[in-house]
């Protein structure tokens, strides 16, 4: 049973804003959300990269304590975007708790700030924070890998399937993809999908130690990351959250939902080898599989949201893969150039930004792309704001562990 899967709502927290109006305006005006790394009294003094994709505007939370008590910051983000998502979608309460609505949501590793508090007990054995040396009764619930997904189910009383991918940079693209498959194959009628990651310097330290972080623009944060640019010097870690609602088409139509796009294909594969290095054949294969899943040829894709983290090798391999499958036809933008790499949320954020551009009829350029690296030059880079329509888009994401995903989304047409 193959069913059409439409997108009926989206919500975001990003370094360039949390409302559609602000985000679209910042994409239009080339505004970067990369700022100086915040001090954390632990790792920030030792990290070479001094930049971060920062959510530095106030966010209102009105969660009752019965919900707050099991949340770390990452779940605040997750529940905030899902609350907005469900309010916009207008699903009735009976359906939300019917078992036909599921949740596919994840984060890179639960709540690192809560984990950090737990780790402190190893070094401060005289802590009087609690009866067990500083470990709170609910710290596991706040820090476990599926904390975002189940705090969402609790807050909104969602009783359907729970999928909680935690595959670093492909976490939320997998969430959307697996949510799509749940609805497509009739296991659920709708899915809340997405990902979130809170401010976290341990992630920066990991990439910093791998020599993968940007360091040359510490005094000019808005000039990095620089995907595909000859002077790129690595990725910038960021924070944020993104959620989208997928519904079976007839169900959405019958309830009069506002349909903003359609997911027509998804692929996920593994490179089958190195856990870090990008792999041309693995990426080419996930692009092919995504197109095959959508039942379209490469010529039908007019926009590619590239994963493009601005690492030396990653951008080259991705450019080669896009060129090999698509040639230089589709417009290619690296949306991380606006906000850094928001890790678990990047797939959802980039999907929603693509839907915004689809709706508003423009394509944002890759920021800081001043001199295209000759090894990345075989594709159609978007270097200036254009008003070309997007009909069909591919959102590509790749993760440590050799995991690749490709989501194919299309402007809705009944």
């Amino acid at each position, binding site marked *: 049973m193959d069913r059409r899967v439409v997108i009926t709502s989206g919500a975001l927290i990003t370094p360039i804003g949390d409302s559609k109006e602000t985000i679209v305006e910042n994409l239009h005006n080339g505004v970067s959300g990369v700022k100086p790394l915040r001090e954390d009294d632990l790792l920030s003094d030792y990290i070479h990269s001094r930049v971060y994709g920062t959510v530095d505007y106030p966010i209102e939370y009105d969660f*009752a*304590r*019965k919900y707050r*008590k*099991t949340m770390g910051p990452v779940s605040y983000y997750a529940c905030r975007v899902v609350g907005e998502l469900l309010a916009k979608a207008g699903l009735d309460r009976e359906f939300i708790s019917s078992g036909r609505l599921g949740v596919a949501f994840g984060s890179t590793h639960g709540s690192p700030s809560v984990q950090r508090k737990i780790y402190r007990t190893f070094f401060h054995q005289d802590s009087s924070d*609690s*009866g067990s040396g500083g470990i709170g*009764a609910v710290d596991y619930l706040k820090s476990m890998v599926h904390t975002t997904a189940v705090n969402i189910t609790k807050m909104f009383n969602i009783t359907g399937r729970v999928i909680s991918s935690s595959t670093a940079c492909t976490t939320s693209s997998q969430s959307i993809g697996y949510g799509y498959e749940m609805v497509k194959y009739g296991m659920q009628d709708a899915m809340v999908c997405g990902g979130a990651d809170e401010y976290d310097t341990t992630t920066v330290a990991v990439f910093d130690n791998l020599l993968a972080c940007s360091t040359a623009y510490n005094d000019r944060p808005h000039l990095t990351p620089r995907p595909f640019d000859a002077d790129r010097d690595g990725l910038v870690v960021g924070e944020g959250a993104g959620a989208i609602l997928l519904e079976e088409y007839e169900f959405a139509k019958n309830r009069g939902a506002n349909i903003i796009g359609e997911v027509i294909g998804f692929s996920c594969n593994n490179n089958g080898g190195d856990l870090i290095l990008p792999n041309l054949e693995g990426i080419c294969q996930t692009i092919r599989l995504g197109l095959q899943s959508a039942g379209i040829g490469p010529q039908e894709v007019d926009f590619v949201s590239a994963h493009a983290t601005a690492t030396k090798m990653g951008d080259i391999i991705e450019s080669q893969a896009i060129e090999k499958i698509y040639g230089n036809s589709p417009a290619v933008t690296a949306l991380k150039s606006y906000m850094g790499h928001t890790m678990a949320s990047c797939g959802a954020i980039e999907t929603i930004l693509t839907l915004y551009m689809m709706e508003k009829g423009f394509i944002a350029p890759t920021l800081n792309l001043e001199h295209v690296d000759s090894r990345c030059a075989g594709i159609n880079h978007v270097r200036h704001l254009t008003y070309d329509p997007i009909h069909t888009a591919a959102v590509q994401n790749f993760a440590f562990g050799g995991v690749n995903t490709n989501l194919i989304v299309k402007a809705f047409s009944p």
Partner: protein
Amino acid sequence: MTREELQTEICSIFRRQFDIHDPGPDDDLQDMHGFDSIDAIELLIELEKVLDVSLSQETKKDAMLHIRTVNQICDYVQELMPRQQAPNQDALHQ
């Protein structure tokens, strides 16, 4: 600490830690204020700090069965305190 002082302190904990304001002394905390088992565990941890005592696992498990109202919490603490005169006495029986 008198019963009245104890009740005031417990209500202060409820306000500060649990967003529960002025519960009636015989209110069923779970039914009327959403005070669940996780809250009960956190209350016991808070009581350990406030009363400067250390409770054994067995004591806590027993308490979980008997603290559904503020009055029951006061009863529990008043019963507990004489046993806690020697610091950490309870913990020694683990």
